[in-house]
């Protein structure tokens, strides 16, 4: 029930947010920097609003969670939920990216002018991507709250990881964002296990910064004339 509410909230917010950004630039094409800065502002606003209303601090789920013994390991509900729902969400995204709407989204991300020329509907994209991203955000948010508890800053942290995953790999494709997220997730876990949990963020964002600098986006670094 809680997960369903989380996903529904994610979908509503994503569709509304897509529509707001679209209304800001009704006749023109929007660059990634516009969406990034607006999303950063909105995430900060939501964090501030949540913190102001409920106050600071960590809140954990109140119920006792049973665990499942498997060999020498104990799987708790959050781990099982994270594994199953994360896998289902990834599979769903892969299938969705192979549909007409998924291809339309990828084309829009690569070349907005061409996408408009061949008749891809902006409204259809707004709703379609809102539903898919809202579902993913709802699943990730519910897992974060279940496994680690929630703080007002949780959303802002997820936004940071999401932005890093989306921009880590050079191709503006849905599956590249998924791959970027997997790379960052694996790196985060490895850094937590092998180095230190408190330094994991430094390692992950060090990797993001290195990737951005290595591939480069300026015209000089891409060698365009």
């Amino acid at each position, binding site marked *: 029930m809680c997960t369903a509410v989380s996903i529904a909230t994610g979908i509503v917010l994503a569709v509304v947010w897509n529509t707001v950004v679209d209304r800001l630039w009704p006749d*023109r094409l*929007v660059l990634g920097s516009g969406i990034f800065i607006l999303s*950063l*502002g909105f995430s900060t606003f939501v964090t*501030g609003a949540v913190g102001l209303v409920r106050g600071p601090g960590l809140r954990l789920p109140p119920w006792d969670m049973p665990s499942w013994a498997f060999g020498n390991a104990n799987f708790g509900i959050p781990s099982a939920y994270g594994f199953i729902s994360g896998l289902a969400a990834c599979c769903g995204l892969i299938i969705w990216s192979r549909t007409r709407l998924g291809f339309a989204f990828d084309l829009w991300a690569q070349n907005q002018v061409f996408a408009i020329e061949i008749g891809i509907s902006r409204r259809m994209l707004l709703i379609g991507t809102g539903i898919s991203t809202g579902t993913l955000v709802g699943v990730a948010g519910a897992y974060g709250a279940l496994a680690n508890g929630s703080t007002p800053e949780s959303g802002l942290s997820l936004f940071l990881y999401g932005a890093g995953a989306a921009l880590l790999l050079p191709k503006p494709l849905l599956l590249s964002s998924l791959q970027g997220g997997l790379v960052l997730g694996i790196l985060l876990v490895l850094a937590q296990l092998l180095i230190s949990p408190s330094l994991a*963020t*430094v390692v992950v*964002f060090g990797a*993001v910064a290195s990737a951005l600098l290595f591939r480069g*986006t300026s015209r000089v670094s891409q060698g365009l004339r």
Partner: protein
Amino acid sequence: MNFSLILLTSTCLFATAGLSCAYLYRRLGLVSVGHGAMLGTGAYTYAILASHGFPFAINVLVTLVSTCVFAAGITCLSERAVGEDYALLTFAIQLMWSGIIANWTALTRGPMGISGLGTGPSFRAFEPLYLWAPLSAILAAASFWAVHRQELGWFPRNTAVVARSSELASTIGLSPLLSRFQVGVVSGALAAGAALLLTLFQTYVSPSSYGIEVGVTILAIGFFALRGNLGRILLGSVLLVLVPQLARFAGLQSSRAGYLQMLIAGAVVCLMAKPSLGRHLEN
């Protein structure tokens, strides 16, 4: 009286930091989310040196140099990453900076920060706040004047070419990297001034004082700086610094007042991004 001076000092120093952020955008079209780290570098440099007993003049000089070098280094990275990638890059640098500062306990004393720094030079019976408040106001006004004065010279023309196209700049004999370095040094100098006075005035530093929230707050004040004169910058600073402080004074919990600042900063970024950055956000 003292509370009013504290508010005035904070407002003026954050206005200077916002001006530093806006300067990067004006000259090179770069949106920096990592100005908290820039300010924090200056603050920590001074705090570490002061806690080791170095003379005040040396501390000030090294703080200026280190902040300028840090700022110039980050600005030069725009040779490789632009647009949203540069914003994300500064974001990543900000988070890495916070992580390193919070974990390098031998040097920075970790999350607790460095406190009891004193007020720099000895003032005997004189209340230091009476000096920091007018100095902060002078710094904000002088920074604004210097930035506007600079817009009349040759430098803005060079950086305008670099911002438009590095290849074009190279073709007409300009060095894009040098121009970026110069812009970074100026931005860093403004941030260093603000950081130095902020540290002297607060007498402590901690990682949470220069986190990502501070970066977003400075960005929001920077949007005001992009929209007009010193009055507007101060208005932005008043909105983002003064309102949460007044709410705290009126009885709002201290931690909740911090969230109020985040709420206002987020709203300002959302509402002013389009009118302030305009053409850079459109294709």
